[in-house]
């Protein structure tokens, strides 16, 4: 069973998030670690990292995904998350179609 790639401490943003790794004809349900920080090598950006548990993955090799967000992108993501969180809490209908 592979080693975890992300450090997991009390400072990690989320030590447990449910998720799925999805391919064209497969899907692995897994717990995941999600962390937001700033990388020393790119201090002008925000880093979003995610790693599924290696023990849950059948169809994909264990790995971590790193996204490098500009401050503007990070704020955009945060705003979008806030907006969706509010509508989820309000029990609003999930809009259909692509134009949502």
């Amino acid at each position, binding site marked *: *069973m*592979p*080693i*975890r*790639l*992300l*450090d*997991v*401490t*009390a*400072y990690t943003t989320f*030590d*447990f998030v*449910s998720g799925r790794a999805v391919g064209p004809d497969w899907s692995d349900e897994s*717990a995941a670690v999600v962390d937001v920080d700033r*990388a*020393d*090598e790119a201090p002008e950006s925000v880093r979003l990292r995610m790693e599924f*548990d*290696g*023990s*849950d993955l059948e169809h994909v090799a264990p790995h971590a995904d790193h996204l490098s967000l500009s401050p503007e992108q990070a704020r955009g993501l945060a705003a979008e998350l806030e907006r969706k969180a509010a509508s989820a809490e309000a029990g609003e209908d999930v809009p259909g179609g692509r134009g949502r």
Partner: protein
Amino acid sequence: MVLPVQVLGPAEKELDGEIVTGFNVRIGGGLGGREPRKARDLDVFVTRENAYHVIRGFVELYHDHGRRDNRQKNRSRFFVDDEGTEAIRELLQAEYVDVVLHRAGRSFREEYTYNAGRPPEEGKVDHVGVHDQPDGRKYVGLNVPVGRMTAKEAIALADVAKAYGSGQIRLTRRQNPIIMDVEEAALDDLLAEPLLDTHQPNPTPFDRGGMACTGTEFCDIALTETKLRLTRMLRWLNTNVDLPDDVETLKIHYSGCTADCGHAYTADIGLQGMRAQKDGEIVEALDVGVGGGLGPHPEFVEWVSQRVPADEVPGAIESLIGAFAAHREAGQTFREWVASFGTESVVDLCEPTETTYEDPYMHDAKQTWYPFAEGESPAPTTVDDVPITSD
């Protein structure tokens, strides 16, 4: 310095026609951040007198040349990855030490016994118990369960050492105290001291091998409770799980997060704090690894189960020990068995399950307590220094 990072390993070398004892220098080991490294040989022999100067030189060299600007890279193990030991050795000699760096001497690594995963008939592996001193007197090593001794017990230890020995106390590399210079005639009275009911010279194999970092109780980066939980787990294992008769110690090391201050990486069974979902709730959980250890050939654990809810960990350990007992060849230690049986096979036999063990810390998550906060302290003693039972 933690053990696999060992900086100075006992060695001897012929210098100017004379055999001199000293140390071989190794650098760049470490366990944390999910990037463990064994220390690497710098190919340098130092005498006892020069050891300080050489280590100081390396620290200064690292201060000047290490990645101190980058918090994630600021570890000597990554520096050694990048630079290599030969270049570091040359720079050390050229600019940081006045003494001549001798090439490595004859190492005694093959004789290392501590946590080497060897069977008891190959000799003692720690200093716990009653042992002979070269001068004919005895020394008595006490096992401090999960490394916690109260202030009152520490005072009692000093009194006992004075009453039955010379008053000298030494510490083992596991921080267990050794009472020195005990005359044989005083031994029975010493062994009858109440202090030795808690800090035993003859602990169970589980108590002897249990070790835990501080955990959430006092550490702000830990994810889980550690010492009190491990205490309860060890009690449960003592009562409910039988090891083969010839197994005298089983090292279960528990760290509250991936920083691994509890040395889970170098245990027979290593535990690291995580979080899991159980019955719809987020609970404290542990990653479980097997097969680590030190000795001449250090090995890190390989992980066999992730996010085991804490209340199912004793069941998982029971299944691992059951598999060990059933499949080991005669005389094999746990680490030897994992090496020969194969970790992938162990994965299939590790079965986390609820047992009669009860875990009161499942939802303890980060009950960090500020010393000046109003309200009750979660510390495990009352204001009178009376330990609060973990039961």
